[in-house]
């Protein structure tokens, strides 16, 4: 299943990456090369093999539900490229 130019554009949209025309060509070529290689996994029969999603973690542990101070407001905002008094500043994204 070769990756088309449209596939690359679709995936780039999902990943919020505005690629240049040149990059779309390059990524199409690279991704097809990599997928050709990873397709070797299809030669393995994994019908009754369970998936491994985590190793060594038995179960997520519980912690006591105790209130603790959180990051101060001004410190949380200190690294933002743009902020206002009450939070991170972003362009309007809700239609009026």
């Amino acid at each position, binding site marked *: 299943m070769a990756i088309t130019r449209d596939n690359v554009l679709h*995936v780039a949209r999902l990943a919020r*990456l505005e690629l240049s025309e040149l990059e779309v060509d390059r990524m199409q070529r690279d991704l097809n090369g*990599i997928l050709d290689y*990873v397709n070797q996994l*299809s030669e393995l029969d994994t019908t009754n093999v369970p998936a*491994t999603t*985590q*190793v060594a973690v038995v179960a997520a542990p519980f912690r006591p539900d105790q209130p603790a101070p959180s990051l101060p407001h001004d410190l949380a905002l200190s690294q933002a490229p743009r902020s206002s008094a009450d939070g*991170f500043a972003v362009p309007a994204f809700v239609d009026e």
Partner: protein
Amino acid sequence: MSDVLDFSIADLADKVQTGALTARAVTEAALSRIDATRELNALLHVAREAALAAADAVDAKRARGEGLGKLAGVPVAIKDALCTHDAPTTCASKILTRVDESNSGGTDPERGFRPPYDATVVARLRAADAILIGKANMDEFAMGSSGENSAFGPARNPWDRSRTAGGSSSGSAVAVAAGLALGSLGSDTGGSIRQPAALCGVVGVKPTYGRVSRYGLVAFASSLDQVGPFARDVRSAARLLEVISGRDPLDSTSADVPVGQYEAACTRDVRGLRIGIPQEYFGEGLDPAIADNVRAAIGELEKAGCSVKPVSLPHTKYGIATYYIVATAEASSNLARFDGVRFGLRIETPRSDLTSLYGKTRNVGFGAEVKRRILLGTYVLSAGYYDAYYKKAQRVRTLIKRDFDQAFEAVDAIAVPTSPTPAFRLGEKVDNPLAMYLADVFTLPASLAGIAALSVPCAPTPATTTQPALPVGLQLLGPAFAEERLFSLAAEVERRMGGVPRPPSA
């Protein structure tokens, strides 16, 4: 190299604890060594003032008669993927640096993200009285095997500056190999500690998944990432691991398993240990000089009383394909947080809507390899491809893990090469992502299985007319939480090989 920086960590900490050396003198020696080796590009940030202040604080503590920690006065470098409250943290990416005047994306790591807190491992080093001398160069977001994906230029191999240091923890390996620091921290997702350790001729440890807290490590692939130490000798690496290991309430994946006596294990007898040799790691593509030297190191373990027997890890060849699906899928999700809103770079015009702010910021901020992996990861998780790629890879991961489980029923540890080749030339693989991925063929399976692993230097390759002598790493693999055993074996190899020569330029 000045004598002070030649000490092992235990010897140096001992001298600072007894007052034979001041932390200030050690720190000044490290800083002048850093100044003299700037062309190696090992560090993205030199913590000059903070390091001197920390050293003075250690000396003052001693003057007050207080006991000092296990890393008293030891200069340590930190991979730039680990958060430090008093130094920039960039992951060697433009996206974690503030925009410059030309609005073309950050180019100066000094303008990097300032985390509001320390990573747990960083806090533990400070609590042990270590001196943090700088942030180490790396492949952007730990994605790469040569250090060349750094937005701030590659670190150079001190054995031959036209060659790569390996990656992704390139600067952490170079800092230790060239004597800028006695120890360093890196992170290993698919070999990013072990491979640069091998290529730079130092010791590098990838602990068992869960052994070390990842709180404050910028996440790449969360089911694989693990923090670990570099040092020039095995015992120094063991001491570092002892300091940083252990359960952390701030990381729910950190294991509630007692921390081992890693340093004490370095003098333990290895007689009777069974070492497995998988033929899958000694076939086609392995540099013959590396095969010879790794076999010679295994021969030394035999002389020390270990028994050596063949084992089989039949799914080894599927490690690369499995890894590049699992790791990129997890990365595509983890890297969604870099959106130009809360920290780092933002590319925005007065007319920008939120979608174009995201898209432009991420396209300018991420380098080519990071974009490639985000796209691949998004693709393998997307509707219609999830089962064929992601689900399939998770099942093959089970087969790879079972290979190790079965092998460890018959042997106590497995000995293999760390890297199929010695350090390759800068530029040699940059245009061929797949060729770069193949460099990790021997380190990926242990990462997928989550087991303990380390790389210890064995004899370097012989110098030829076309290349100088280059370091070779022996990789030792053990079951989960068997780090003590690996340290015993690595220390035995080190003793019998008579230690490792210094790079010619250091």
